[in-house]
């Protein structure tokens, strides 16, 4: 994952609440074994509608998605994050997020910024008023700014997610540094494993 410090880009107002991960990327796209190319499937049920905000020329090339409450609830599919990033989004600003979606985003470097409903509505108005306006998200200082409007808000981010974004860390590498502790735990654990439960063909052995 690449480190993320400051993101600067234009915003696009989705203005919908409860956008679940089935809306973000429909299940038909989940058959693929690759990690790339999901951008074409982003919001695909809505993309046929010429009025859909992502189809409006003035918002083309926006990199910050402004969404309603509970963005990314539902299915655990990380494909939702891959689709948003592949399409070109670097950050989502919303009043709240689905738990698993927020977690998945943090692993890929997609920044999730939580602001109040009122703040997101303000931002919606600012970008509708002038779609060329730049928004600045500073992960280091935990702030969102619209410099030309003098608009500025602080936001809260899980300290670990912030560290990870700034450092561009590989979680697995971090955990593997504790391999001794993992091995110690395994030596003590009495929880059964699958040894002896199934034969090589996956049939249950009679024990």
């Amino acid at each position: 994952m690449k480190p993320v410090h400051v993101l600067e880009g234009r915003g696009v107002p989705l203005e919908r609440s409860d956008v679940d991960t089935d809306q973000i990327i429909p299940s038909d796209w989940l058959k693929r074994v690759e990690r790339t190319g999901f951008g074409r499937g982003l919001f695909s049920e809505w993309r046929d509608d010429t009025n859909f905000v992502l189809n409006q020329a003035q918002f083309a090339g926006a990199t910050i998605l402004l969404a309603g409450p509970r963005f990314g609830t539902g299915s655990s599919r990380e494909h939702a994050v891959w689709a948003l990033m592949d399409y070109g989004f670097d950050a989502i600003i919303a009043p709240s997020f689905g738990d698993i979606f927020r977690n998945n985003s943090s692993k890929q470097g997609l920044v999730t910024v939580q602001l109040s409903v009122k703040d997101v509505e303000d931002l919606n108005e600012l970008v509708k008023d002038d779609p060329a306006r730049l928004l600045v998200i500073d992960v280091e200082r935990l702030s969102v700014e619209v410099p030309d409007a003098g608009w500025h808000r602080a936001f809260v981010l899980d300290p670990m997610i912030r560290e990870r974004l700034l450092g561009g860390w590989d979680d697995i590498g971090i955990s593997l540094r504790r391999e001794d502790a993992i091995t110690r735990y395994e030596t003590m654990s009495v929880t059964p494993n699958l040894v002896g439960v199934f034969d090589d063909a996956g049939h249950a052995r009679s024990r």
Partner: protein
Amino acid sequence: MAGKTLYEKLWDSHVVAAPEGEPTLLYIDLHLVHEVTSPQAFDGLRLNDRRVRRPDRTLATADHNVPTDPLSTPISDPVSKRQLEALDENCKEFGITVFPRGHENQGIVHVIGPELGVTQPGMTIVCGDSHTSTHGALGSLAFGIGTSEVEHVLATQTLPQQKSKTMSVSIEGSPPANVSAKDIVLAIVGRLGTGGGAGYVIEYRGEAIRSLSMEGRMTVCNMSIEAGARAGLVAVDETTIDYLRGRPGVPQGDEFDVAAERWRTYVSDDDAHFDQEITLDAAELVPFVTWGTNPAQVVALDGVVPSPDDVHDSDEKSTVQRALEYMDLAPGTPLRSIPVDVVFIGSCTNSRIEDLRAAASVVRGSQVHHGVRALVVPGSRRVKTQAEAEGLDQVFLDAGFEWREPGCSMCLGMNSDILTPGQRCASTSNRNFEGRQGRGGRTHLVSPVVAAATAIMGRFASPSEVSA
């Protein structure tokens, strides 16, 4: 000092390391894998020259995308076929037991874990699927993860985790006879809303939960995520122990009794403190149907479609309006007057043997309403075999239902079992999101007996109307 909740006991017993200022590293006892959220994780391992740390704590099955056509039918979709093959190849390469299409143990991952007895009390269990919460019914801490985390668990058998808050949802008293586990959880999701459980692990308690079968408890825990909670729990009791006895994955003989003694400790202490406590009166529960496009939009089967005027919050008003438009419903319409095109009985919520028995008891001797397509998709091959031994397949077939091969099927519309645009479906699954069961499809979540009655009547109906 106050006692511990079940969640705290599960958490405390799985801490590998708790470094200051960092998330706790939690040990994962069982990692369940399926074809959809794993291929990119296995690729990640290969790219970084990493192995699967504990193949003996990892188990894979094909479920999401597998066709439910007869096994003799080749898989027609090349992309699906490729993904199913990738699962087999990855499991072979990394030494993981896998149940491919047609295998005697194959089925929906959340159905096979408990039925094989590999899901056990006191375990931590993860899977790249949000309905992993199902396994919490057996007193295990089980939650869904994304593909990056799948890779993490494959490589390390651990996950960095922040501790959740605890919520007790207590259903006091006994529900009326026509109320099923599905109705209980629809009531809970309706009460909490889609975000009410966010940040919490929910423990389901009270007489109505205690008196449920294991299958019913799994149905309740399954939909925890629909209220935003990553995990749901039910404390271990004799129902749990009796369910597990003799299953392939559990210790046998005297060793079982030793394990059972340990499992019985996985309950919340009497003086444990929950961060939030909610109580529902079971006597007030009724059969429920969802009317909208999220699982919290529930209404009584006896009720009517709500109106945007019923809510005051302007954001909520537009959500209701949008849902009504998508669902093509007018406020005030009685649910019982709404015709359906398709009935789906299946999914990790309601495809276990008890669900099929309940549905079969409603349809026995009746015919599916003219023009309605009705499918039964057993949750696993073992469920299918059991149902066939009991003659349930014939009951469904005689009534005009399709009797299909096991898999996730129309719950999420990844295979060819999908709705066509505009079709309305009564479904025993867990999500009524826009397009979930097929583009433009309209999903109403119901219990197995309401689904069965609806298939016969051609509109939302209760079992009592079928026999009338």
